[in-house]
């Protein structure tokens, strides 16, 4: 039995002197579980898990997956889950200066004392932070270099559906829904740990489970041109699917952050999966099939959750909330139960049409501040290519409905760099922005026009694994920059604020998401060159990345601006996400046809 080593409180006090936001590094929230690790250690079958989130506390805490796993694991008496987040740069410096290893929040257990560390990877730009957290914990980043006494290291989340690039760092990867598979894995750790911790036997056991990918079981063979020749053995790992969401209640006692998180509200998942099929959207495919919770249970459990937490805002989460059949019933049920107390309901990911504006009005009595709306493309042609099913008339009707009912602000999302995108399509974005602004200003009450404000966010298209566009090429950086310029030049920016994502950063994200096992070395070298918090504009270090690609004779373009051949073996072909490759290909061909057919018309 290995010792559980902890940081003492007075040592923490010393470390936190002068650190910004010290509240990030202590627990003591309402809803926290803190099981005595020494008591647990006496039971041979106990398992101590660290749920590691490779971003700061404020961003990690609102993550629903983290709260769900924390709840499920801690509600089993043999298991204990504690949390660790990426320390901000000032605290990392303090840890490194003093030679202090990274520790969990609850009992300040050094991470290398855990049985299992599970990383939640929400996007690819957190890869370097993951390595950094392992290194700060005094754990070898490469799986095969680790000692038998080291914790098992695993990862899951949307950025792990293509496990290739991170595979050399992970003992295993969890693909799909975590609820059931996590417990099954912990039961096997509990079984194999007392027998002297035979890691290879344990990995063999868990690789039999749906949803567990063990990288060391696979060999990737490459052609000289860099494409994949063979994945050996040719066995696919199926993702884990939770058939019935209602088989788990929503988390009714979540941990309530003591310092202000990015989303400060009670979050409830009402539906998982999306049937819309926007061809660029990875979430729309990897979370299939669509499963809903029943409104009745949701109402009851949400009320309980609100009473337990004291939140004054509830957020109903799904990928496409307007497709939730019992939405009106759900909202009425919650609002009716809550007479006398102030409560706001937020519905992110609403498809906006006049009907939904009525619903939005229902929930935002008196507080009609902002609406979010994602046309994604400016021209109908481009919306057809990406399969974003909304017409300009629907958009305008919605703007009309919203602004005549008192809204003052709107946020629009667009994406640039889609397959077959022409200059006209970019100009159409600028045009649509202008038309929406002018419609809104004409419709809204005259005395409110002064307050009108519109935010526009321009994102760069990243072809992602398991989408119909997984084969498509990403647009070249200079062209992306020109397109951004074109929009800026054609939109008056007096009351319209435009923000855009950095094409340089998008290219790295794209390469990592479509990368293969050889990129592990690149990630390692980028991290060694100082890359971390790659998603933070002021910390993103392009040179660290380009240097790392060069050092490993890897071309970024190979993974970004190169279209992948439809006959090519894709790096993620050994993962079965439930959506057939033939279906994706059919959708891709349809998109290309739509692009072509319109060209001939012009």
């Amino acid at each position, binding site marked *: 039995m290995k010792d559980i080593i902890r940081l003492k409180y007075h040592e923490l006090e010393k470390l*936190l*002197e002068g650190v910004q936001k*010290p*509240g990030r*590094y*202590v*627990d*003591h929230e*309402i809803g926290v579980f803190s099981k005595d690790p020494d008591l647990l250690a006496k039971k041979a079958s106990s398992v101590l898990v660290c749920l590691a989130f490779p971003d700061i506390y404020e961003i990690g805490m609102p993550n629903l997956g983290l709260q769900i796993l924390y709840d499920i694991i801690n509600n089993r008496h043999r298991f204990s889950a504690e949390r660790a987040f990426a320390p901000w740069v000032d605290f990392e410096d303090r840890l490194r200066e003093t030679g202090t290893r990274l520790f969990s929040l609850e009992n300040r257990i050094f991470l290398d004392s855990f049985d299992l560390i599970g990383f939640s990877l929400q996007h690819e730009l957190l890869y370097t932070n993951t390595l950094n957290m392992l290194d700060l914990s005094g754990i070898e980043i490469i799986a095969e270099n680790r000692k038998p006494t080291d914790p098992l290291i695993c990862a899951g989340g949307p950025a792990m559906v293509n496990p290739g690039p991170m595979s050399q760092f992970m003992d295993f990867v969890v693909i799909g829904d975590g609820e059931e598979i996590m417990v099954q894995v912990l039961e096997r750790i509990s079984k194999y740990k007392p027998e002297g911790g035979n890691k290879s036997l344990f990995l063999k056991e868990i690789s039999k489970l749906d949803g567990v990918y063990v990288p060391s079981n696979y060999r990737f063979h490459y052609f000289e041109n860099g494409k994949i020749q063979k994945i050996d053995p040719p066995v696919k790992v199926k993702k884990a699917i939770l058939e019935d969401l209602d088989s788990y209640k929503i988390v009714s006692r979540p941990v*309530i952050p*003591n*310092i*202000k998180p990015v989303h*400060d509200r009670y979050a409830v998942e009402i539906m998982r999966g999306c049937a819309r099929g926007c061809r660029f959207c990875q979430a729309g495919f990897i979370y299939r099939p669509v499963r809903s919770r029943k409104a009745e249970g949701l109402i009851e459990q949400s009320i309980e959750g609100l*009473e*337990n*937490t*004291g*939140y*004054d805002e509830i957020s109903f989460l799904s990928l496409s909330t307007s497709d939730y059949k019992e939405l009106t019933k759900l909202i009425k049920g919650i609002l009716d139960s809550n007479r*006398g*107390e*102030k409560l706001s309901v937020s519905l992110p990911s609403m498809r906006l049409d006049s009907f939904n504006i009525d619903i939005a009005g229902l929930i935002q009595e008196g507080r009609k501040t902002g609406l979010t709306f994602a046309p994604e493309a400016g021209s109908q042609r481009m919306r057809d290519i990406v399969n974003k099913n909304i017409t300009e008339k629907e958009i305008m009707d919605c703007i009309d409905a919203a602004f005549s009912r008192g809204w003052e602000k709107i946020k629009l999302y667009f994406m640039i760099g889609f397959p077959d995108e022409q200059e006209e399509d970019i100009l159409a974005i600028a045009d649509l922005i202008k038309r929406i602004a002018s419609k809104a200003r004409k419709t809204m009450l005259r005395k409110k026009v002064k307050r009108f404000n519109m935010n526009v966010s321009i994102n760069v298209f990243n072809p992602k694994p398991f989408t119909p566009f997984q084969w498509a090429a990403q647009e070249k950086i200079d062209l992306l920059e020109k397109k951004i310029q074109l929009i800026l030049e054609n939109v008056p920016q007096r009351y319209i604020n435009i923000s855009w994502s950095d094409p340089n950063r998008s290219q790295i994200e794209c390469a990592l998401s479509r990368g293969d096992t050889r990129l592990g070395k690149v990630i390692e070298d980028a991290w060694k060159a100082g890359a971390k918090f790659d998603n933070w504009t002021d910390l993103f270090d392009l040179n660290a990345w380009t240097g790392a690609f060069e050092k490993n004779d890897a071309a970024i373009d190979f993974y970004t601006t190169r279209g992948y051949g439809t006959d090519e073996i894709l790096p993620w072909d050994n993962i079965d996400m439930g959506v057939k490759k033939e279906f994706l290909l059919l959708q891709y061909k349809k998109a290309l046809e739509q692009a072509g057919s319109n060209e001939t018309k012009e």
Partner: protein
Amino acid sequence: MEKKFRFKFSKTGEYKYFSHLDIITIITRALRRAKIRVKYSEGYNPRPKISFGPPTPLGIESSAEYCDIMVADPVSEEELALRLNDQLMGKIIIDTAMEAPPGTKNLMSQVDLIEYSVYIRGRDPASGSLEKLAEQAGEMAEFEGSIYDIESGGTIEGGEGKILKLSGYAKICKDRNPKVFKLMNFLEYLRGILVPYGLSIEKVIKEELYIFKERKKVTPFEVL
């Protein structure tokens, strides 16, 4: 039906790492969980009638956090404290709650002085440096004209060497007195004095708030 209450709580241990705004959110949520309804102000943008005493700097423990609330339900002083403590689960402890007569001025406009204790450690008691420092207390009170008084609380034995307690009364910025006492600036100044003596600051605690009433300093409860 409405009642005004003033209650006192402490911010110790890990809770010293949460900001004033964080603590406000924590207390407000606990009130909701305890189903104690706070009155809202009338008007276009209704706000809950809840106000707090002067903020304590991040990293400093406090035994004198005060909060005034206007409650819409008929609860007693004991019940208010009990129900809140149930919901705070021992993370923050409300030690006293008192009903305040209608028209009681809010804390921020009432409070005149904040009492801090600074514990100073001397590792070598034979040097007499703690005693010399204690004699200097009066001089320190000149700091930026923002201190009302500093008293020596004598020394106690503790661990390695001895500990001297200084009690300082900082003036709160009011219209008549534009000087704002900044605890962090004072501690930096104090460290400058301590270094030659080989002394160090052990801990700092916010002890109490005072209000001048008929030239005497009284606590926010005594003034009610």
